[in-house]
């Protein structure tokens, strides 16, 4: 058996681990930090232009090898397991939540409050934006007041977005460009965006990706990154309720068990694998899994539901100018006094939907050559807007991640299964939500001779989170607001699992902000003991 020792052992190598490790090594340059990631390193930015080309031309995976074949979960929405995690191929959207998200109970009598003040979270939003390199413009709503400006000016609106903003704002609803972790000017050693239209594989590094942070960390003394290493179990100290070791296996040397020792362990493996590891580390003293005296590990799995529409309008839209950049309205983050609870964001993008080339004309006959082009040109006279709203659904306790004994990896570890379930109040709102959105789509379509081409409801919860909910009451939560587990004083959980609810917009910036806050608490331990 090989044993590795460090001051802080971080399990999982995604965006939360990158931010945590970076800040810890800044706050306490003398400490040693080890990050263990089951997937492999994909640090070949020099190949990304070619990966992008093959993705466009052949629909190949632009992140080759970013998965582990026998390490899959039912109910996840991304199979990516690699150094950088899902943020390797994220779109870079960096919306903030709003105070309503953290005060659901006290403001609306719904679900729960977060154990953190909004002003405190806002401070760390600013830091997260600075570290990720977010470009954006201020919200027109006074409730979205910021204590610091965005680090970079907003991405320029393309001609298409200018047209769509003009159209959408005829409803009286204000829109702004979506803040994104994309460089509108050279920033943090990375290049300015050159509008490649493929942000899920940014070939230049203009869109933030955790691999850049890990590469920087690897130049520092005391930092180690062990990739292709799967942590299978956390083991308790024989006398105390603290974590003594993480037992792991290297995927290329499966017969050599590995052991990691540290005074502090941090789970940063995301909403799926963090609760999975806690449940899989059950022992005689904690038969329901570690950190689980509340019984809430793998419970309150959250996310947000969504409805979308394509609306055709009289506008000259040129599909492909920058499909990755869009508009957002935060108007519906607020619930007007006296109105039933209903919260959502509202997004607008350019689209080619309804105006794509087709093989058969309206009469069903095959179109070839000039006839196909003429049909396409005729239909492309009008433009299309893609609309989507993420709306609040709050999880039931039974919205769960459990171990699936019928599905095991090569080492015989049961794989997780996630089943989302809304709470009773969210379920009761569903009809009203649908009516509201369809009225909203029609309201948008009233302008510029609009026509709703199609509407659709999402069949999964996007931006999933939860499973290790934070709270003040150890009987009703897994961690405190810093991610420190109530049951094990040297075990933290950071990132999306600690979110009680997933708000009504993308969550990456929020859990990154919370992780940066956790870093300060973890660093304090070393000031006291060093």
């Amino acid at each position, binding site marked *: 058996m090989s044993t590795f020792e460090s001051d802080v052992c971080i399990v999982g190598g995604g965006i939360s681990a990158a931010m945590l490790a970076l800040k810890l090594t800044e706050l306490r340059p003398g400490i040693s930090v080890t990050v263990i990631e089951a997937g492999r390193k994909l640090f070949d930015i020099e190949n990304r232009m070619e990966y992008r080309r093959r993705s466009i031309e052949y629909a190949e995976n632009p992140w080759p090898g970013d998965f582990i074949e026998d390490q899959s979960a039912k109910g*996840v929405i991304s199979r990516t397991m690699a150094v950088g995690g899902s943020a390797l191929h994220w779109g870079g959207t960096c919306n903030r939540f709003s105070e309503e998200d953290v005060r659901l109970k006290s403001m609306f009598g719904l679900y729960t409050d977060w154990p953190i003040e909004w002003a405190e979270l806002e401070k760390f939003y600013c830091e997260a934006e600075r570290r990720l390199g977010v470009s954006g413009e201020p919200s027109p709503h006074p409730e979205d007041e910021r204590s610091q400006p965005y680090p970079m000016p907003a991405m320029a609106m393309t001609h298409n977005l200018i047209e769509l903003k003009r159209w959408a704002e005829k409803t009286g609803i204000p829109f702004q460009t979506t803040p994104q972790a994309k460089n509108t000017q050279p920033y943090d050693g990375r290049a300015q965006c050159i509008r490649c239209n493929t942000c899920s594989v940014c070939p230049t590094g203009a869109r933030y990706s955790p691999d850049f942070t890990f590469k920087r960390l690897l130049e520092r003394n005391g930092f180690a990154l062990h990739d292709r290493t799967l942590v299978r179990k956390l083991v308790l100290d024989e006398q105390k309720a603290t974590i003594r070791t993480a037992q792991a296996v290297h995927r290329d040397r499966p017969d050599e068990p590995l052991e990691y020792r540290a005074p502090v362990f941090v789970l940063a493996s995301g909403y799926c694998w963090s609760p999975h590891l806690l449940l899989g580390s059950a022992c005689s003293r904690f038969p329901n899994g570690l950190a689980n005296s509340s019984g809430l590990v793998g419970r309150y799995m959250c996310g947000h539901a969504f409805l979308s529409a394509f609306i055709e309008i009289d506008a000259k839209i040129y599909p492909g100018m920058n499909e990755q950049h869009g508009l957002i309205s935060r108007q519906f983050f607020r619930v007007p006094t006296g109105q039933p609870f209903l919260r959502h964001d509202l997004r607008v993008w350019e689209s080619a939907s309804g105006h794509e080339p087709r*093989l058969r004309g309206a009469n069903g006959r095959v179109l070839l050559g000039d006839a196909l082009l003429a049909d396409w040109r005729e239909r492309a006279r009008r433009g299309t807007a893609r609309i989507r709203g993420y709306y609040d659904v709050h999880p039931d306790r039974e919205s769960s991640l459990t171990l699936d004994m019928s599905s095991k990896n090569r080492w015989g570890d049961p794989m997780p299964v996630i089943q989302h379930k809304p709470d009773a109040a969210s379920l009761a709102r569903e009809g009203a939500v649908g009516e509201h959105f369809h009225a909203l789509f029609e309201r948008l379509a009233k302008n510029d001779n609009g026509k709703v081409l199609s509407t659709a409801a999402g069949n999964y919860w996007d931006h999933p989170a939860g499973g290790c909910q934070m709270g003040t009451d150890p009987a009703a939560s897994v961690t405190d607001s810093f991610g420190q587990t109530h049951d094990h004083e040297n075990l933290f959980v950071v990132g999306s699992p600690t979110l009680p609810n997933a708000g009504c917009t993308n969550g990456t910036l929020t859990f990154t902000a919370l992780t940066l806050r956790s870093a300060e608490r973890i660093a304090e331990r070393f000031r006291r003991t060093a």
Partner: protein
Amino acid sequence: MRRRTLLGWLAALGAGRSQAAFPGEQAEHLRALARVVLPSEVDAAAAAAKFVEWVRGYRAGAEMEHGYGFTRLRTKLALPVANYARQLAALGTRPSPDAVSAALEEAKVTDLPRTPDGRHVASDLMAFYFRSSDANDLCYRTAIGRDLCRGLAGSENPPKELRR
């Protein structure tokens, strides 16, 4: 080595050989087909040559996109290049639009594939071209350059008209 990996390699090896030989003696057949299925504004011979390059660069067994929202791991199937050869031979060097339409009907091609899918060489050639950034530009008669890296400057303006 996993059986699945070995089979994938063997399939890729066999497919690679036939792809490299494409279109063999049927280069003129392919150019003739391009003249029928692509717009007259397009240089059909050049478009056919690009399609040949695409076929030769295709990698059977390559991982497919499984990113956000697509959790199933899939690999690219082998391109049925032998079918392409048979289909080109059947259409001959002077295919009529009716013959191409009939061939597509027979192959049960109902819409333009998102990417070439091997059902018929005619629909694959059409998908290859009409789904491209160049075709998008041609449709709008402007230099949108959807698949290019174009910089941010000037993007607030409509794209420039195509220079022909």
